[in-house]
């Protein structure tokens, strides 16, 4: 019990100053991640997943106001000096983006960019050492002929190879915490599975704590230990992955599970729930999901449900106890 938790986020709030006033994109989010654990973060587009995770790394633009607490191994990161954050970024905390094409600098070779990652955290490495380490890293993610590909530019790589290189770069300095923001969304369906395998193998091998943002519940089922479901800037359900699929405790989660198409090999996208989430400026006073919720009642529109323990999970729904039947769709997916 001596070692502090890898990541402990409490009441994280992020708001942006805009022409329309100050808009809250993340409204009080708690996240916990233990070493070597995989946390799935799911939710529709605009629910605040990327903003919350960027806040952890201190990567939001200056006009974003961030409050709450973000503890990494017991150290408070909110308000930490830029110097300290720079040491952590790319060192003990690393990031993988959705689209590896735009995430690599088009003017520098893949090798230069991976070597830069190494060099930024260990200035003593010689040119030759950097190159050797970079080749090793490309080998680690199974890029063929790494010693020649190292000198190629991002546009000369295929999408899958680029994302492998991105993963290699992210793990270059053996991070303890890895944030992967939809690492496969931009890729062909056929290579998605390969990339996830690479990511999972490395996560296990290096015992990395992984926060995995995804739209794909199949990915969550196959990789995550625990899942946080976000809706309109809040976490509406948090559960162990088996519990989530077996007994979803929130109507939104249920809708997500029900929306998974049961076609052979197709992966579930979350966009297929009727209606759309409220805009940041137009959140209803009670439960943000009320306008779309089949179970909504008067209380839902006046009182916001708090996230509270229900069974082994936590749910933010007034009627959480009445939910819990295992859906057929979820069964089919598992």
């Amino acid at each position, binding site marked *: 019990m001596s070692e502090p938790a890898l990541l402990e986020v409490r009441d994280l709030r992020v708001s942006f100053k805009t022409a329309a006033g100050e808009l809250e994109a993340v409204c009080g989010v708690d996240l916990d991640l233990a070493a070597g654990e995989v946390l799935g973060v799911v939710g529709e587009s605009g629910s605040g997943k990327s903003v919350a995770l960027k806040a952890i790394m201190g990567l939001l633009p200056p006009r974003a106001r961030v409050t709450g607490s973000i503890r990494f191994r017991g150290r408070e990161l909110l308000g930490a000096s830029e110097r300290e954050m720079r040491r952590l970024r*790319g060192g003990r905390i690393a*990031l993988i983006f959705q689209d590896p094409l*735009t*995430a*690599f*600098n088009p*003017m*520098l070779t893949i090798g230069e960019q991976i070597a*830069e990652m190494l060099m*930024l955290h260990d200035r003593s490495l010689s040119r030759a050492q950097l190159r050797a380490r970079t080749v090793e890293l490309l080998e680690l993610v199974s890029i063929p002929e790494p010693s020649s590909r190292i000198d190629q530019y991002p546009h000369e790589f295929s999408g899958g190879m680029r994302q492998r290189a991105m993963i290699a770069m992210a793990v270059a300095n053996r991070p303890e915490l890895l944030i992967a923001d939809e690492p496969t969304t931009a890729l062909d369906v056929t290579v998605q599975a390969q990339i996830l395998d690479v990511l999972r193998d490395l996560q296990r091998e290096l015992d990395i704590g992984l926060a995995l943002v995804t739209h794909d519940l199949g990915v969550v089922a196959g990789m995550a230990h625990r899942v946080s479901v976000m809706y309109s800037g809040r976490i509406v359900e948090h559960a162990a992955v088996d519990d989530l699929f077996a007994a979803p405790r929130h109507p939104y989660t249920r809708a997500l599970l029900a929306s998974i198409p049961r076609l052979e090999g197709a992966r579930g996208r979350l966009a297929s729930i009727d209606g759309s989430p409220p805009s940041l400026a137009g959140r209803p006073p009670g439960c943000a999901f009320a306008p779309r919720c089949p179970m909504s009642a008067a209380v839902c529109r006046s009182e916001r449900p708090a996230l509270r323990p229900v069974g082994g999970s936590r749910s933010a729904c007034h009627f959480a106890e009445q939910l819990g039947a295992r859906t057929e769709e979820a069964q089919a997916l598992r």
Partner: protein
Amino acid sequence: MTHYLLRRLLAMPLLLLGVATMAFLLGNFVKGDPLASILNDRQMANPEAVAAAKARWGLERSIPERYVIYVGNLLEGDLGVSFRTKRPVMRDLLDRLPATLELVISAMLFGTLAGMAIGVLAAHFRNGPVDHGARIVALIGSSVPVFWSGLIALYVFSVQLSWLPGPGRLAPALKPPETVTGFYTVDALLAGEWGTFANALSHLVLPTVMLGWAVLGIISRMIRASMLDVMQQDFITTARAKGAGTLRLLLRHALRNAMVPALTIIGFSFAYLITGAILTETVFSWPGIGSYAVDAARSLDHPAIIGVTIVGALAFLLANLLTDIAYVFANPRIRLE
């Protein structure tokens, strides 16, 4: 890509011929009798002298005839003889080219480097005092004509403050260094004449800044805009997520990318420099092609005017070609096609 550059290279002689033709036609249809620039008033009154002059300068022939002869000579690199200096125009131009090149190159370097630095700073501190200051500096550079700003600069820094020397390339008391490149600064360095070098350099400062200022204005605005664009992109966040510091982000990651669209502008601003050099050389009594052009125009010295036009066009075409090549090399996505 090599194909494209090759085509551009092959098109150059044709373009030059076009320019020479235009210059020839304009030169022959403007009002004003070129004889007036060859002969003085008394000679003009003497029909014999006029006829002799016409024969000597080929003016008795028809315009098409003159054109054919002109182009034929042009192909041999002969630009004819100046009415005014009575020397081959080619000789005159070659003598004066180094002075102009020295000025234009240093103005180009100054404008580009200072413009890039100011553009990067303005983008980094956008909407702050630095950005507003940069905007004003750029605006002055691209809107105030050189003949005016040049005169003011001479008055302030040379006459009033005596920080910098007045017009010319070198103090009259000094002997120009032995010609190697024709650039006084470089030649003085090569000869190890430090005093001459310092003097030539100090003469170069004001015309360089005044001529380069407009380039600085254009380039700083362009770099600012494309920096702001690039700074929004994912790979900048990636670089930050790697732990890169501000300077590394700005220079290694952002500026490199922002340079690509700015390169085209650098090529364009070279065209500005060619015309701007004419005014600058006049204001600063700089003995280059620009002031030669002004003298030629004043005295209706047709061969010289056409010669200058061709040199200007050639410089413009070369600058554009170099820009294209730089553009290709700066951008791996195009270079590797």
